[in-house]
């Protein structure tokens, strides 16, 4: 594996690192706002993966100049452009859910929500027989 391979794959590896940080935040953190931010990081890493694949060395932005030029692939750009706005709309939906959860449970920590649910279903923790 030579230097060209490492340089040629570096983008994808960094994308994977970002993706895994996002995943780790979603899996390991209990705070719902933090989870939404983690999802956003994950989402951005997917965007970067697509755009990295669309890049051509020595290419330029796919807006015609009238001169013969190499253009980078416009298709990933189209897919990701719409995905970003959809992403913010769905983030807003997620945050709205967080606000309602706060109204209903008075907390946005996953563990505490779970505890409240358990209490409702099985009675409070002291009543539960081992």
């Amino acid at each position, binding site marked *: 594996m030579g230097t060209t391979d490492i340089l040629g794959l570096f983008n994808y590896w960094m994308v994977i690192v970002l993706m895994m940080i996002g995943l780790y935040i979603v899996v390991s953190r209990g705070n719902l706002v933090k989870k939404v*931010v983690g999802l956003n990081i994950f989402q951005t890493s997917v965007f970067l993966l697509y755009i990295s694949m669309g890049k051509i060395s020595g290419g330029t932005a796919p807006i015609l100049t009238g001169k013969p030029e190499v253009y980078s692939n416009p298709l990933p750009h189209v897919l990701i452009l719409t995905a*970003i706005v*959809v992403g913010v*709309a769905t983030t807003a939906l997620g945050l709205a859910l967080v*606000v309602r959860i706060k109204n209903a449970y008075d907390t946005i920590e996953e563990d505490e929500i779970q505890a409240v649910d358990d209490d409702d279903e099985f009675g409070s923790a002291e009543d539960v027989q081992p």
Partner: protein
Amino acid sequence: MSVESFIDITLLVFLGLTAFAILKLRALFAVVMLSSVFSLLSAGLLVHLDAVDVAFTEAAVGAGISTVLMLATLALTSRREKAPTRTQALPLIVVFLTGMALVYGTLDMPRFGDASAPVHNHVAPKYINDTASEIGMPNIVTAVLASYRGFDTLGEVTVIFTAGIGVLLLLGAYIREPTGLRVQTMDHHLVLRVVTKVLIGPILLFALYVQFHGDYGPGGGFQAGVIFAAAFIIYALVFGLENARKAVPGSAVRMLVACGVLLYGGVGVVSFAFGQNYLNYSVLGASQVAGQHLGILLVEFGVGLTVSAVMVSTFYAFAGQNPPISDEDW
């Protein structure tokens, strides 16, 4: 190592550092600030990777709207993340193994920037070669977005529409109605008020430029919609939500949310009526190119309408909530 790959690597490393900082910090306010920096960095990287239209969208979204929404959520919930109580070992192992599997998968990928990679040989050459003659506009991304893949975009706009309705369903019932009491706005911030007044005009003008210049440069309905909404949000922030609601009533915005999608779908129906396929704009004008131009203009306008209306009504929904009375220390 060339300058290009130096910039590329530096920005990616910065992104990694920012993401790691987001992971480490437990003050949620700092997390929000860092996520806005994350967005700035990714916009820079996108410009570097030739995706100017995408960078434009990321800039429009990341510069204001997402920070505002996150802050609104923090204002309504809490500002501190509690210390994690459960063991962190299992998630770490899962994430590490997944990452390794993905890295193994990349070994077979075409190298970065390889012009002969399979992605570049399928439909992309057709778009690049035929846009000038079939659609007649320089920005290939807009041509593909609104015309070649118009169906796709209709779907995306519908998703945004649905998400907007979802937010209104979740929060709408809790929006505080005007109470007639004295509304406290940023009265005493004279500098802010003056600068905001100066800026709102250019922002609206710039949104219109982005909306209608999208055929020639980076831009289009998605970006313009977000920028347009940003102007109203800045007004509501500085001059008070009540005054913003007087200028643009919530009910009118909710109507516009639907109007945009209706306009998009309606253009498709018109091309039906002319005996063509759905969303084939060629019949709308005297020549194919003229028809495409008109069709794309209308469709992009519909997109812009829906996006800006969804953003504004989302902001109204978040900002109109009663803030919880909390003396939590932050």
